[in-house]
């Protein structure tokens, strides 16, 4: 147990991220199921408006910050050092710190569900309830009286620190710790997409941090940054939030695109088609992602010139995105396709993401968007790209890399059930939402009029959601039941081309007995110009120093939720204690002898 609390090994941290994130995914999924149960009929099933508003807020916040991002982080952690030929990340203790901060931030957010009595609320839950993007001025102290929004803004500030720290860590790791011969354009596409994603993280998260701090000042200290009566402009919140929020959606999708770019070549037995284009399109998407944010604000009255500019940039970004899809099809084309579950999910990604992408293009047309925005049409778009896209991509990664991470194979039979039920369930759940939106159902409503005629669509969505739930449970069973299997997965069960398949499954603690020298993009394959890399020696020629663990990342991390609790309870001494823990932790960490 102690070794897990003090671990600085990227592989263990990756597993910690995975299980924690998967747990939050199940929580977010439960929130979705309750939402869908309530919406199965117009008058609902008895979920109150207040509870419903908390549920959709927490569903969005949990899925984005506590499930999708950390599930991607599980793979950044486990796989990146292996793919680049390194023994660990650049800053192992900082890596552990990111994990603990994520866990604690997620716990703080979810603690709000039961913290009501501590705040004299008349209900158990004071969970955030202003939507996952918390528009001002609904979030002002005047209109959001309880601690709900405070939990949200403090929790997200803490989570932001986790993401930023990981961002710095992985940028340096990927740029600076590559094996000899691993030139940038020989990096696996997953590593490339991760690098691009981390640049987005370190530039976008400061912006939301500022927005959250300004909101915190409004709510705690009486400023008027977003309060009209004091001269503030609620629209400033939207600009700041979406300047973060749009890069955030690319942070969410690019890693999954990277996974797809790994899985398709392995199971087609041919290289990724258009590697350079796929890499550069990811970079272009990241840059363009900064130019489109106000397409979330088309109904706010930006004016026709701003509307036109953002409509234009949003359409532009469809081009590099589309290019990737064609390159993926090009990868499959002419290949020898083995339909493992990983490949099924990767193909599913392509099939579903194109739908989300096309509804995205319809959103780009600002006037048309005036009918679509804030309705179930955009809920459909979001879920096609984030579930049909990111989640299916992440599932592909799970089936692909599970043997490497645990030494055990997942059941392919259960995997097929998981895949088909998920594909059917998600289309049943989300396709009708295009229609319920176009027929007048706004989002974030706990009840709707029977006369709108959208009841039937809602029923289908609910059945679809339940199907996804069952599929997920099957997957969970798959994960759990393999723990009883012997750890006997081969080094390279799928015949992959990249370095993570060069050592045992799971890898030894030092990853590589000898750091290889890399000659091309596909080191483990026979290519036109290169034989496969020589197998790594069984044992390292000399003992390899592996750093021990450290308590200081976890202890330092603890300082922040303590400060947050102090803020929530308006107890300055508690804030100071938290700050002291943070400062002492940093000092002890800085002066701790730690050899990487």
């Amino acid at each position: 147990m102690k070794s897990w609390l003090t671990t600085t090994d990227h592989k263990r941290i990756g597993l910690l991220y995975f299980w924690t994130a998967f747990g939050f995914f199940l929580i977010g999924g439960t929130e979705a199921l309750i939402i869908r149960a309530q919406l199965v009929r117009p008058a609902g099933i008895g979920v109150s408006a207040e509870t419903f508003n908390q549920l959709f807020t927490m569903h969005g916040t949990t899925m984005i910050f506590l499930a999708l991002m950390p599930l991607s982080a599980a793979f950044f952690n486990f796989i990146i050092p292996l793919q680049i030929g390194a023994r660990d990340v650049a800053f192992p203790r900082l890596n552990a710190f990111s994990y603990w901060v994520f866990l604690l931030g997620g716990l703080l957010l979810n603690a709000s569900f039961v913290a009501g009595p501590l705040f004299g609320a008349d209900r158990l839950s004071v969970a955030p309830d202003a939507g996952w993007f918390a528009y001002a001025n609904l979030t002002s102290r005047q209109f959001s009286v309880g601690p709900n929004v405070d939990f949200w803004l403090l929790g997200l500030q803490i989570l932001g620190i986790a993401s930023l720290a990981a961002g710095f860590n992985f940028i340096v790791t990927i740029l600076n710790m590559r094996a000899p011969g691993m030139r940038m354009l020989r990096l696996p596409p997953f590593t490339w997409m991760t690098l691009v994603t981390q640049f987005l993280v370190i530039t976008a998260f400061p912006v939301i941090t500022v927005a959250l701090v300004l909101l915190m000042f409004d709510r705690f200290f009486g400023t008027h940054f977003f309060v009209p009566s004091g001269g503030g402009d609620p629209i400033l919140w939207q600009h700041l939030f979406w300047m973060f929020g749009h890069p955030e959606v690319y942070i969410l999708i690019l890693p999954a695109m990277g996974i797809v770019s790994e899985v398709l070549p392995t199971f087609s037995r041919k290289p990724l088609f258009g590697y350079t284009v796929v890499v550069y399109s990811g970079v272009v998407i990241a840059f363009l992602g900064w130019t489109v944010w106000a397409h979330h604000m088309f109904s706010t009255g930006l004016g026709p010139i701003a509307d036109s500019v953002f409509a234009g940039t949003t359409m532009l970004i469809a081009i590099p995105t589309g290019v990737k899809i064609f390159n993926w099809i090009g990868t499959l084309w002419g290949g020898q396709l083995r339909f493992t579950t990983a490949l099924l999910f990767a193909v599913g990604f392509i099939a579903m993401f194109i739908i989300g992408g096309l509804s995205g293009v319809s959103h780009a047309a600002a006037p048309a968007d005036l009918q679509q925005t804030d309705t179930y049409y955009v809920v459909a778009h979001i879920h096609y790209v984030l579930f049909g896209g990111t989640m299916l991509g992440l599932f592909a990664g799970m089936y692909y890399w599970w043997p490497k991470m645990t030494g055990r194979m997942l059941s392919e039979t259960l995997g097929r059930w998981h895949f088909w039920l998920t594909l059917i369930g998600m289309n049943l759940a989300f396709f009708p939402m295009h229609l319920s939106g176009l027929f007048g159902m706004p989002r974030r409503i706990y009840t709707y009029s029977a006369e709108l005629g959208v009841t039937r669509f809602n029923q289908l969505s609910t059945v679809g959601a339940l199907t996804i739930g069952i599929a997920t449970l099957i997957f969970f069973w798959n994960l759990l039941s393999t723990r009883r299997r012997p750890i006997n997965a081969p080094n390279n069960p799928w015949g992959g081309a990249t370095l993570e398949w060069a050592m045992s499954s799971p890898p030894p603690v030092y990853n590589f007995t000898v750091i290889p020298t890399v000659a091309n993009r596909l080191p483990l394959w026979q290519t036109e110009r290169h034989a496969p890399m020589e197998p790594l020696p069984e044992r390292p020629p000399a003992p390899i120093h592996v750093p021990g663990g450290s308590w200081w990342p976890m202890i330092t991390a603890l300082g922040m939720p303590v400060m947050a609790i102090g803020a929530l309870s308006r107890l300055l001494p508690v804030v100071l204690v938290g700050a002291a823990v943070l400062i002492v932790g940093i000092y002890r960490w800085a002066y701790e002898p730690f050899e990487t």
Partner: protein
Amino acid sequence: MPLLLAAVLVVLTACSGPFPQSALAPHSDFSLSLDHLFTNIFWWAVVVFLIVEALLLYAIGRYRARPGARAPKPVHGHTALEIGWTLAPALILVFIAVPTMRTIFETAGNAPEGALRVQVIGHQWWWEYRYPTLGIAATNELHVPVRTPVQLEMTSADVIHSFWVPRLAGKRDLIQGRTNRIEFRADSAGEYWGQCAEFCGASHANMRLRVVVQSDTAFQAWIDRQRAAPAAPAKGSPVEMGQRVFRRSACIGCHTVTGISQGKIGPELTHVGGRATIAGALFPNTTDMLHRWITNAPSLKPGVLMPPQALSAADLDAVVAYLQSLK
């Protein structure tokens, strides 16, 4: 798979009745422009969808691994293809972008001379309308004349709301401290449904509205009724009793009835009897609903400021009769 589902959905839903809040049944110049633009994009999307999915399905069918087959050719890319499948989407986007920009400027909300101006003020969770050129006000049900340009000048008294009547207009937000404009010309008389489309708190789902598009004569008649002060009720009538109950109850603290009370917190009730709906277009304006609403509004509309009223049965009947008389 999605295509199959779409077909199933179309079949399942074909039996459904009219969709009163449909964005696909435009009845104004504004919503017609939006519908044209959407239709254009929709068909392009269908084309792209069919091409991509067909290529994908072909690839996964045709290139299944067959035992004993040769290793696939290690193709790394193809420059001409890359250029082609970059330019083709770009070209399609031009066909979408040009009508988009045109529609943006067409629907920017600038009304021609002679448009009827209506100010819309959003509250949690009801709508206030003022007609500055006509000197009247209204609540929740917006009356406009048919085939006449109408300009809505919208702001909020509290949080951000969004005015959305899909058949007549795209939505625009109501933001405190700003004025947003919608301009439209309805093409046929009728009652059009809408609701708030920006999450605005506990009863966001219950903030609904109606737009009543009327012929010029009917509209003028409505204006005249709105201008008129309520008639004095007949002595000894239930309506008169109800007026007395109203005057001595909490009602006057929040509601305005011309000549009787000046409360500014809740909607004006001077013409509540003439509306088809109550409580933010949430319920039909019936005797039963009025009873239930006055007795315990928060139980019907969570978070609403109007507290439950403890009136005797007789008083309640009387005040309902009074409200119904305020046409």
